[in-house]
């Protein structure tokens, strides 16, 4: 999968510290595949005890349909290393997550699956929270976030991760290409 530009309205979930247990609760981790996890995304916020959609939860509102960009409160993705979190977000249809801080393991896991983690400054974040449903554009090549009526904002992204995302390069393939160096390391250290 190659990614260059994402254009979408935003869904805003302003809660701070949205952890991976919220993104996908532990009881759904007994799966042995990646497929279908979107149905359980935010399960405990999204459904009642009978499994019925809670009408006041943002993803259950009609205006959220088709949105590809999730604006989260500060520090999203903390907690467990479960890659099921980005798998669930992607399976549901999200392509990018925006916050002021994104937890390390979740950020790594997201980049490896084509879910774009976008870290923005406080002022941009405040604007995004105040303007749910805004039509935004994320341009990966220039690493900019374009917001209606505002100056484009640069966001940090690891150049290698960007290269891999834009060219559909698989990191495992890159690692496998280093086989000679790995062999040399192993024989040098007797590792």
């Amino acid at each position, binding site marked *: 999968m190659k990614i260059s530009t994402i254009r979408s309205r935003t869904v805003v979930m302003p809660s701070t510290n949205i952890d991976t247990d919220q993104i996908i609760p532990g009881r759904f981790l*007994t799966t042995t*595949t990646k497929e279908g996890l979107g149905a359980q995304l935010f399960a405990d916020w999204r459904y009642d005890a009978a499994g019925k959609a809670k009408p006041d939860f943002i993803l259950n509102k009609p205006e959220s349909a088709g949105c590809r960009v999730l604006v989260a409160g500060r520090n999203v993705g903390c907690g467990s*290393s479960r890659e099921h979190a980005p798998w669930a977000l992607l399976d549901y249809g999200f392509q990018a997550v925006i916050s002021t801080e994104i937890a390390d393991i979740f950020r790594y*896991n997201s980049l490896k699956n084509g879910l774009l983690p976008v870290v923005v400054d406080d002022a941009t974040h405040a604007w995004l929270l105040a303007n749910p449903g805004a039509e935004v554009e994320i341009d990966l090549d220039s690493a900019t976030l374009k917001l209606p009526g505002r100056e484009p904002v640069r966001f940090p992204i690891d150049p290698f991760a960007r290269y891999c995302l834009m060219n559909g390069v698989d990191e495992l393939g890159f690692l496998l290409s280093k086989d000679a160096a790995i062999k040399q390391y192993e024989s040098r250290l007797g*590792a």
Partner: protein
Amino acid sequence: MSAAKTMFEKVWQAHEVVPETADTPAVIFIDLHLTHEVTSPQAFSLLRERGLRLRRPDLTLATMDHATPTRTEQVFGGAPITIESAAKQIRQLELNCADFGVELLGMQDERRGIVHIIGPELGVTQPGKTIVCGDSHTSTHGAFGALAFGIGTTEVGHVLATQCLLQKKAKTFAVEVDGLLTAGVTPKDLILAIIGKVGVSGGTGHVIEYRGAAIRAMSMEERMTVCNMSIEAGARAGMIAPDETTFAYLADKPRSPKGAAWEAALTRWRALPTDAGAVFDKTVQIDAAALEPMVTYGTNPGMVVPVSGSIPDRRGDPVFDAAMKYMGLNPGEPIGNAPVNVVFVGSCTNGRISDLRAAASVLRGHKVAQGVHMLVVPGSQEVKRQAESEGLHEIFRSAGAEWRESGCSMCLGMNGDTVGKGEYSVSTSNRNFEGRQGVGARTLLASPQTAAASAIRGRVTDPRELLNG
């Protein structure tokens, strides 16, 4: 003369297969890959799809802990596993390990246990190693001076296939713990206080090194409790310099180096601690002597107060307000008023033998309060055998607690060991997130001593009240 280096920098540099450049991350060699049933199936599928083999079976070790039952009849007696998907996941791990040649400490193996408990028990966790596992509490192994961190399933696949990871070098963060912990105050209380101070994202992008008198005075098991919860401060790894305490712990472990290899290892390990004058990117200081037993009141591990204290009043802060609503607690109220329905002693944070001894020392001669369900789950089968040889299980049972087989159990409730909706659980585990221990469960994190004291009184209790009386 080379510049002064931190322990993290030394371990990092020793494992650079290809150094980081402006355009590419470093290729880092992994000395030990631990794996379990939950975060590995899709990685093995990736290897199958690509026609790849396991590169280093000798550096790979699997066990099962998250989805496994803790009832003896299900582990050893052939009773069916209640959750069908969990049973399937366990069977899948057995199949994957057989297909790819991974050593598996399976369901009935006497060495089975929580992956972060058995690594040190076996002696495969050693100073200076790079250790990874598809599990965020891999930070536990940093207590030995290893660089140990959690990875996602894609990275599990990378390590299976290449024994390497692509990584950007983290920043360094010194947590200096001066003074000594006082009686009844434990390493769990210390790490909760540290998370309260630095915040749940304070360590993001950093590797923590815990330093200072209080850390030096700790046993290995205590150091593991501290490093375990580094991830709860946002840090992917936490490290403690190896010393005589570390070497004494490892000396008689089954897979630690022996003979001349042990002597050579000691020489390497003694060179690991951070050099005098090395600079950390960030430093905080904390006075261990001033700490009290701590307990969380909210829905992240940074929302913590002394057991003798009160819930703060931060009304108007949306995080605080949401936590109060979920927890059903009131701003300004003494945390000692909080009711207790369930007490869980166990997990990779506090499931080792010293933790069970600590809980038993409080419980001895007491009963669990009426209406409180207490579950004691040893961190490994080795811990279970040791506890039973000391008679700890009889103390738990005669107090009215349940005594189970090892596993992650109620820390995350994946195996069906859950806390009911709206119930209050005083838990020695590591996360108090909404729903972590079951849908609608309300978790208060605490030490084994505080958990045991709270079980006896049926409300959150300072263990020093019972230890002194």
